[in-house]
């Protein structure tokens, strides 16, 4: 039995395809997922978006992102099906569970460190709403620069 993992599937539907066609594709994916005993965790439709470069004469496309939990075989089948579907101009599958796990671990570690340091200083473990950011581990100069740069980018 192969392991279940979390994947992110992004596909771009040709601009010629109707909204109905996009919905049909989604149900197709859903059916494959069900057939392989996977779960479709989340679907996001970005709608029509301009492409950064032309893909086979198409200048824009409809982006759909599906978060799927299932086996590698499931993703292989989806990949095969999307490859032969003409209305799909591009698709990409990314395995995300490891990356998200690492991100989650880093976040909790950081939180734990913060709580430990704060209790060592006799403060409540969680920062209060009244406290300003930057009084803890950053020097004031750094904050000034970051603030300015953030403004400049907007």
């Amino acid at each position: 039995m192969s392991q279940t993992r979390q994947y992110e599937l992004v596909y771009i539907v040709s601009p010629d395809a109707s909204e109905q066609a996009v919905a049909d594709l989604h149900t197709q994916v859903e059916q494959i997922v069900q057939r392989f005993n996977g779960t479709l965790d989340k679907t996001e439709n970005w709608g029509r978006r301009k492409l950064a470069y032309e893909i086979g004469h198409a200048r824009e496309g409809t982006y759909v992102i599906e978060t799927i939990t299932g086996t590698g075989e499931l993703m292989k089948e989806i990949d095969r099906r999307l490859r032969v579907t003409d209305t799909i101009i591009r698709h990409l599958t990314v395995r995300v569970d490891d990356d998200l796990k690492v991100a989650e671990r880093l976040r909790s570690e950081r939180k734990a460190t913060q709580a430990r340091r704060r209790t060592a200083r006799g403060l409540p473990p969680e920062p209060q709403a009244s406290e300003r950011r930057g009084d803890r581990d950053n020097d004031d100069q750094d904050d000034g620069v970051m603030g300015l740069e953030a403004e400049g980018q907007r």
Partner: protein
Amino acid sequence: MSPERGGGGGRGRGAKKDDKDKKGERPRGGFFRRRRVCKFCAEKIDYVNYKDVRLLSPFIPERGKIQPRRISGTCAKHQRALQVAIARARQLALIPYVTD
């Protein structure tokens, strides 16, 4: 521009003249504003999301190439993550491969 720039940039300008013969001094010109800290470390971004164009776009100058670490100030770990994210975003036509 800011008090910080006056301090850090001052050394940069001074070092610029003789950065060829002084290897120990970091040869950074005054053309780009210096970013001393990695954006991802400073903003505590653990996962570089390839779908977030607004996050990636500051690292892609007009030409479409990935900005080197020595200019953007990104740490090695996050530059690696950034590379992968940009590669994925390019495949999905969110970011151009080349612009000319």
